[in-house]
């Protein structure tokens, strides 16, 4: 506590490494963007209700030059940015950024995240992304307009779409991806390594489980879409033509559908990335407010794991109308409908938790029950899209929009309010006003249901999504009154959210002071004060039981409480599965779990997995493109293989020198380590220099990304690898400088080892690239 006093205001609130402060930064950013996304939605509903009529109020604000009318070129920007902002800049920051950062260390009994500085960088990467997204509204010709799914070639052909908004949108998403991946490393490593003594995996709250699975999915699949987005950038600004075919294509061989496979390869898991933490939260909150243990805890966790696995192999159901082989479609259909089985288990367990409970209806519980209701609709309507014949009629209609707004928008919207209203007292030490909260719940719950149900209704009638004016079609004229009605209801919904804003700010300053445990919750976070001290726990907690020990028989008579806190030693006498103090308590705090791998190294491995997936995306695309191309040249006749061979040799040597450096660390020879670090860095630089000469030469020979698919693939793959070598050299030089002062041989040795892993990885990637690009 003394230490924190000395820190400046900037270090404490702005560039803080405290996970709780960072969580609040994420929360505020996310809520602001939720408002931006909400206003964009409202503008769309107004345009659809009264096509080409002046928009009241907002029209004068945003569309003054056209007299408040939304022009046809503006409307696509509205739905593109609504989707992009809601998914990546509102819900992701709140449900992964804020919920993850705030709860993970507190719930598992850690003092902070595994990498607090990386955590701070995660937030600021998102912040930069947010700035880029906001700036994109104001560049000439405005924000991105190809839909948030960025289907190619609409997004990737410069001839069709020369607008800078798309480039900025991709840049903003890339920064957000850095934030999410770095955050994911922190979540995974923190959960694996920093659990308090006795906090077995099966004693973690379900929210923590949800966040863990969600971080795993991000680590695996986000790099895939990152690869695809960079390929779009290459298409646009280098004329590469990976995703462009037909008359617009710069050269033969581009494949339009490849982008959709890459996009939905991430895009479908993204649904679960966002909903998994909410499922966890629902499980925990139902248990707390029913004063009963979570029913079928293990079955819920296993179901989450099964969905995590399934989510990566069902993407094809987004592409039934794309011209995909119907047999492949059938496989995707069967895989997709299987998701309903684990989902059914959730519902069974949620109802099981309520069964014979003692249910109270505080505001967080109301929002939780709201999630259960809307997710039932969202989940069940999902079945319609797994069924091929039906999906072909419903594809790209408002029936889809309604469905995914039930699963994503409504569930996540209500879920994030469950999160905020539940954790508000812990975060800010004040209580929210429950009456305002209840009115806000009922307004939000009823109105989102009306709006999204109406969307499904017009969707049944065939109303296409992303059209600016339904009255242009004869068959849609009968349902135009529903569009008018939705415009009105959306207006009320937007207004009703002011209740939350008012409650949030009023309670922040004037709310009742919150106790340490206002909800009588059993997990570790609620054993410390509200708000918690800087490093969470004055003394490292020891955990004796699971997170949901409510209504334990005989307990109330003895202690006056109906629940056992996870750190309550009474668990030993009251519960059969309570355990005596683990002997491992004597071990140092961080060496508890998986002692054979250090935190730094584990972090590096998680990072490398996402790197592997990035290169899998790139190399996989290369293979698909090359197999589809008819005019692929013999690489040996185009490339200077002698020079590239020498370069390969140089890189292999650098791996060797790095290995010698690590050997020096183990021998305790710091001087030798410094020498080898420098040699490795110089070899890396030599590789990059030769590479640049190679590029220069090839470019003058006429091998450019725009000239042939071969050129495009060559520059993409080797260019990405070159950037990795460059960042590796930067790390090496940093280590070299740092090793003048820091003792790497005794204290920080694992940093050298982790960097070594990265360097070897880069070298392996090169050997693979050399083999498949230059030799075959």
């Amino acid at each position, binding site marked *: 506590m003394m230490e924190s006093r000395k820190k400046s205001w900037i270090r404490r609130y702005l560039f803080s490494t405290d996970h709780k402060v960072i969580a609040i930064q994420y929360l505020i950013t996310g809520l602001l963007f939720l408002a931006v996304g909400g206003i964009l939605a409202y503008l769309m509903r107004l345009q659809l209700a009264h096509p080409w009529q002046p928009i009241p109020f907002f029209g004068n604000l945003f569309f003054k030059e056209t007299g408040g009318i939304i022009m046809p070129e503006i409307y696509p920007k509205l739905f593109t940015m609504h989707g992009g902002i809601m998914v990546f800049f509102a819900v992701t920051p709140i449900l992964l950024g804020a919920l993850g950062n705030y709860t993970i260390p507190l719930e598992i009994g850690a003092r902070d995240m595994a990498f607090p500085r990386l955590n701070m960088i995660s937030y600021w990467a998102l912040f930069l992304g947010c700035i880029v997204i906001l700036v994109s509204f104001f560049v000439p010709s405005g924000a991105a307009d190809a839909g948030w799914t960025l289907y190619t070639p609409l997004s990737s*052909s410069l001839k069709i779409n020369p607008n800078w908004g798309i480039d900025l949108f991709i840049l903003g998403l890339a920064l957000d991806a850095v934030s999410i991946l770095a955050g994911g490393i922190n979540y995974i490593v923190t959960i694996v390594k920093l659990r308090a003594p006795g906090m077995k995996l099966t004693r973690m709250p379900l929210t923590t489980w949800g966040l863990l699975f969600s971080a795993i999915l991000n680590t695996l699949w986000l790099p895939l879409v990152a690869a695809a987005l960079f390929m779009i950038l290459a298409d646009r600004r280098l004329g590469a033509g990976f995703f462009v075919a037909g008359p617009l294509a710069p050269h033969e061989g581009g494949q339009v559908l490849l982008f959709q496979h890459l996009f939905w390869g991430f895009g479908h898991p993204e649904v679960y990335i966002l909903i998994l933490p909410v499922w966890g939260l629902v499980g925990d909150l139902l248990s707390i407010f029913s004063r009963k243990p979570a029913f079928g805890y293990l079955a819920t966790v296993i179901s989450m794991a099964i969905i995590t696995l399934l989510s990566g192999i069902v993407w094809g159901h987004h592409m039934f109308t794309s011209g995909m082989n119907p047999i492949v479609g059938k496989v995707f259909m069967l895989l997709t409908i299987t998701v309903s089985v684990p989902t059914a288990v959730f519902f069974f367990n949620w109802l099981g938790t309520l069964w014979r409970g003692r249910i109270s209806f505080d505001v967080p519980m109301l929002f939780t029950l709201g999630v259960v209701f809307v997710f039932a609709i969202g989940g069940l309507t999902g079945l319609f899209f797994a069924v091929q014949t039906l999906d072909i*009629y419903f594809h790209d209609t408002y029936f889809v929009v309604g469905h995914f707004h039930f699963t994503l928008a409504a569930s996540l919207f209500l879920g994030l309010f469950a999160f905020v209203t539940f954790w508000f007292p812990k975060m800010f030490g004040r209580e929210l006003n429950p009456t305002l909260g209840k009115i806000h719940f009922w307004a939000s719950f009823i109105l989102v249901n009306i709006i999204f149900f109406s969307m499904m209704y017009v969707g049944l009638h065939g109303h*296409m999504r992303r059209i600016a004016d339904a009255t242009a079609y004869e068959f849609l004229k009968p349902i135009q009154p529903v569009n008018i009605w939705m415009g009105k209801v959306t207006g009320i919904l937007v207004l009703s959210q002011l209740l939350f804003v008012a409650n949030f700010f009023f309670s922040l300053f004037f709310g009742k002071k919150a106790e340490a445990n206002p909800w009588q919750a059993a997990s570790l976070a609620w054993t410390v004060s509200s708000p918690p001290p800087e490093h969470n726990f004055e003394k490292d907690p020891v955990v004796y039981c699971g997170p949901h020990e409510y209504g334990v028989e005989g307990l109330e008579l003895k202690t006056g409480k109906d629940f056992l806190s996870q750190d309550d030693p009474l668990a030993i006498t009251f519960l059969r599965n309570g355990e005596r103090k683990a002997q491992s308590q004597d071990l140092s705090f961080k060496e508890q779990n998986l002692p054979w791998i250090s935190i730094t190294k584990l972090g590096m491995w998680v990072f490398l997995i996402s790197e592997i997936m990035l290169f899998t995306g790139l190399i996989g695309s290369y293979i698909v493109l090359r197999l589809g191309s008819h005019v692929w040249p013999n690489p040996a006749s185009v490339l200077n293989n002698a020079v590239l061979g020498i370069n390969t040799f140089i890189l292999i040597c650098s791996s060797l020198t790095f290995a010698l450096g690590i050997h020096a660390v183990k021998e305790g020879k710091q001087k030798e380590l410094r020498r080898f670090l420098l040699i490795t860095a110089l070899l890396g630089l030599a590789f990059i220099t030769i590479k640049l000469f190679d590029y220069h030469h090839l470019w003058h020979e006429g091998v450019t990304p725009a000239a042939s698919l071969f050129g495009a693939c060559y520059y993409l793959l080797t260019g990405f690898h070159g950037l990795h070598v460059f960042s590796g050299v930067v790390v090496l030089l940093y280590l070299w400088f740092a090793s003048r002062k820091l003792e790497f041989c005794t204290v920080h040795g694992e940093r050298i080892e982790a960097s070594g892993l990265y360097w070897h990885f880069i070298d392996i990637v090169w050997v693979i690239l050399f083999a498949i690009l230059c030799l075959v």
Partner: protein
Amino acid sequence: MSLFPEDASAVGHEVDKLFYLALGLTGVTFLLVVAILVIFLIRYRAKAGRKAYYTHGSSRKAFLFTALLALTVFFAIDVNLAIHDHFAWEKTWGRLPNGNPILIEVMPQQFAWNIRYPGADGKFKTEDDITSVNQMHVPLNRPVIIALQSKDVIHSFFLPNFRIKQDAVPGMVTSLFFMATKQGAYDIACAEHCGLGHYRMRGILTVETEESFQKWMTEQSTKIPDTSWGWKWGNVKT
């Protein structure tokens, strides 16, 4: 008012039937879940003297119940729908109806539908092709096969009154077929966002008797066809 737009095709009702089956299955499930939810919320609400029943739901009985539920969902809903889908698919996408089919090539572009009939020689990309923009005529009760290829970005050929849809992608040919059973004018809509004019990319499909269709074809054949696009009919299922 019906939930769907008017059905003008030979098999649209198969799609509608499948929808009502799915609606029934999911509707019953939904009502069941909500009924249990509401009953529990009322019955087990907190009041003086109520004590929660302490259970982790991890007993053998709970496990068997979970497994039973999973199996029920899988077979009663999933497999059930998959089987019905198989038969509906066969009719809507798998088997071309009997009859002499009309072949049409469509090349959408931002923001119009280019339409091409093979003309008297029955071959595409020849001088006697018949082309039109946004106006498609087909006769009653004859199968129509449409081959699609986009000129620029992805569009999606959507006939709401026929319950079918197929993306038109640049660089590849996709196809669909249908058979009209009701005379009239129907909307051709674009279902894939294709730029700022997406909302007004509307074509008209006129379904008429064989005689008036032939009359229209003869009228059109006097016009000079658009030779800037078109491809030899091939690699399209017939």
